[in-house]
């Protein structure tokens, strides 16, 4: 899973039916110190995260299908599964 910071919502009217009623957020991957790494991507929110929140993002389709319980045909790969309170890295 990846540590990410929520950037903001992405709004789409025309979308695959699996995305209907789900919040899609742009997220920026972070390193263990909170600095941005790599390129931002999109993730479906399952934990009521908002802009500025540090979140845990799972990028694995099987896990997503287990959590969302929408059957076996869900084209969603990235899911926000937790809001991070604290990250401590021992030097």
């Amino acid at each position: 899973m990846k540590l990410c910071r929520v950037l903001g919502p992405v709004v789409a009217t025309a979308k695959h039916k699996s995305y209907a009623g789900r919040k899609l957020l742009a997220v920026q991957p972070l390193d263990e110190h909170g600095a941005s790494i790599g390129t931002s991507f999109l993730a479906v929110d399952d934990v009521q995260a908002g802009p500025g929140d540090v979140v845990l993002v799972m990028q694995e389709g099987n896990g997503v299908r287990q959590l969302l319980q929408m059957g076996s045909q869900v084209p969603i790969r990235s899911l926000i599964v937790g809001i991070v309170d604290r990250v401590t890295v021992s030097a």
Partner: protein
Amino acid sequence: MNLGRVIGTVVATQKCEGLQGKKFLVVQPLDHALRSAGEPIVAVDTVRAGPGELIYFVNSREAALALDPFFVPVDAAIVGIVDDIAADAVPPTAGVFIGEPIGGGGAR
């Protein structure tokens, strides 16, 4: 999933079983600020996207799951047409990472 811009179309007459009738588009992946992020890819379209449109797509096995029937050889699928992105002015995050505040926010 990633943002992208449709920059072209692909026509292939001879193709694998399961791909008949599918529309293939050339997509430039983008980040949240609409800057190019990596090389263009070809994605199958599920939402009637057109050239020039801002879209989002899903990669890997989940791309095939966007189609019905889903046992098809694709690894990128356009699954939404973007109306709006509100990804600027993100409030600073403070107190999560021990030691170093990020985003200009003060540590606790």
